[in-house]
């Protein structure tokens, strides 16, 4: 267990190093001058020099990367004229667009993205696993065909299309739900949920389709396994066979896939946030990409990478908890 955590930690650090190096590399492979981007539209030659120096862009590439890493680990200082701006520990630099510390930008938006993603994930798991089990256990019935069709549909539809349809129906026609606008959970839990229902559904329907497939496949595979036959041969009622012996086997892959899917969910959340105008990290990323706000892009990328790597570690823990054969090592 300890070894597992240590190894995972090391792997996480390695992955993040690689990711940051890749993203940082993009800074320099790109045709433009980062200082010009940072300085903005109205930027005279004087200011350009100041900006370049302030951001350390006049240094060698490897030094800049080193300072960047330093900033992430222990923080760094940006000197500008009379003042020294200290950017505290996980320092990801300053946004070119808003001159805000990227760390703050991310933290500000984290609650929105977390609310959206986690809520949708729970909903997707409930819907998906339910549908998957149902269609596996009702094989050959109308229910199965219906669920298969719905799953395929959910599978083929981009999240923005689903979101659009949901808006049209629930917001424009039925007028039962508001156009989403983020209300912090701490401020008003009821409004928080009411406003997030549509984004949750849009995001969850897509993921649910995947979970349904995996849960269905897992159930069918488990039901075909020999040990199921053993319990049938010993007179255990079918209901109990499914509940006690098939369910775990069916759900183990769902746990794995959830972690593996996180990268996809993050991507879908980006689209969902853009679609509904929710001020989350995904929207930040889209805006940063449009305006080539490199520090923000780097920050979002690293955050997403961390989330994915951590999710995979959690999935491994979960997998080990479900399946006694798996040893954490």
């Amino acid at each position, binding site marked *: 267990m300890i070894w597992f955590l240590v190894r995972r930690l090391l792997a996480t650090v390695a992955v993040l190093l690689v990711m940051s190096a890749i993203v940082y590399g993009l800074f320099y492979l790109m045709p433009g001058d980062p200082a010009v981007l940072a300085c903005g539209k109205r930027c005279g030659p004087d200011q350009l020099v100041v900006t370049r120096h302030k951001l350390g862009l006049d240094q060698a590439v490897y030094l800049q990367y080193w300072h960047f890493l330093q900033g992430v680990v222990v923080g760094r200082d940006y000197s500008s004229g009379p003042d020294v701006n200290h950017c505290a520990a996980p320092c990801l630099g300053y946004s070119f667009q808003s001159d805000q510390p990227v760390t703050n930008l991310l933290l500000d938006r984290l609650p929105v993205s977390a609310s959206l993603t986690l809520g949708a994930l729970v909903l997707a798991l409930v819907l998906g696993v339910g549908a998957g089990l149902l269609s596996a256990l009702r094989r050959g019935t109308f229910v199965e065909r219906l669920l298969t069709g719905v799953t395929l549909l959910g*599978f083929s539809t981009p999240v923005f*299309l689903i979101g659009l349809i949901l808006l*049209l129906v629930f917001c*424009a026609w039925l007028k039962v739900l508001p156009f989403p606008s983020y209300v912090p959970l701490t401020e008003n839990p009821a409004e928080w949920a009411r406003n997030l229902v549509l984004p949750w559904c849009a995001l969850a329907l897509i993921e649910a389709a995947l979970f349904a497939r995996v849960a269905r496949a897992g159930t069918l595979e488990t039901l075909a396994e020999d040990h199921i036959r053993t319990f049938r041969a010993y007179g255990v009622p079918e209901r109990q066979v499914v509940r006690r012996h098939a369910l775990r086997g069916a759900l183990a892959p769902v746990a794995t896939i959830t972690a593996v*899917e996180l*990268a*996809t969910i993050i991507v879908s959340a980006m689209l969902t946030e853009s679609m509904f105008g929710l001020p989350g990290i995904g929207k930040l990323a889209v805006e940063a990409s449009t305006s*080539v706000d490199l520090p923000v892009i780097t920050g979002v990328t690293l955050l997403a990478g961390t989330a994915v790597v951590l999710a995979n570690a959690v999935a491994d823990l979960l997998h080990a908890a479900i399946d006694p054969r798996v040893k954490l090592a």
Partner: protein
Amino acid sequence: MTLFDSELAAGADPVLAPGEEPVPAAGTDPVPSRRGGAWRRLRADRSALAALVLVGLLVLVALAAPLLTALEGQDATTFHSQLLDSARGGVPHGAFGGIGADHWLGVEPGTGRDVFARIVYGARVSLGVALAATALELVVGIAIGLAAGLGGPRVDAVAGRVIEIAIAFPSLLLALALLAIVPQSVPRPVLVALAITAVNWGNVARVTRAQAMSLRTRDYVDAARLAGVGPVRIALREILPGLTTPLMVLAALKVPSNIVSEAGLSFLGAGVRPPTPSWGQMLSTSTTWFQTDPAYVIVPGGLLLVTLLAFSLFADGVRRALDPRSTRV
């Protein structure tokens, strides 16, 4: 794949999904008769056949775009300002987005360009980008996957890690960043296809690697080694043929997923640029107009949905045909 490429990102191709086995049931080599059998099965699969017909039709439409627009007597770029109600924000005059004898599917709000012409030309971009990206992903993915799978532990330690990271990365994010910093002068569809490839090859590489590793340990490969066959010949004659089945399935799944990727990028404004029509970009514009000009939402949205369904159904049929024992939906 509803998501921006769930399969891609997650490594989890929804269909190949659960767990680590990316290839149709490991250890079972589809035997050659299956290939012939696969055709037979595919022909017998009504939904796959219907999907194939639809896919063919769509490809035909894309190819025949100039012919079809000539038939209609319109083109994709001419503005028709007189057909728009300027005082109401530029929505088309008349019901259903200005659908009529002159403009079969109406005109675009804001510009008055012919929707039918833009749809058929947009099909070229959407399908072209998706197919090109799929082909490129296969080339890149197979090369890296084979290197990792056959190149020995050192190569695999590096290549395998790179593949993992590539899969764990939220692809859309990277694609957005890439598209933001690439030179604006290169033709956009080419860039989009390259960007999609750059972020989505991981899946192909992973499947190739896993399959190559599994095939590498087969007795018949050992037998070939004992017969004195050289490594290159072994890779080409003994291993590559064994990759075709899983890769064919994956390629079939990649196409719809790449269509979604293209649409997603265009939706976020990073895809092909307005003078060039593409479905995702039309959908992006249409979300603005969904209340005042619903026809403009329904046409490209519905078409995208049908296209994705057709490709997904077809891919599913291919998978069923090539791997008939699969229990997955």
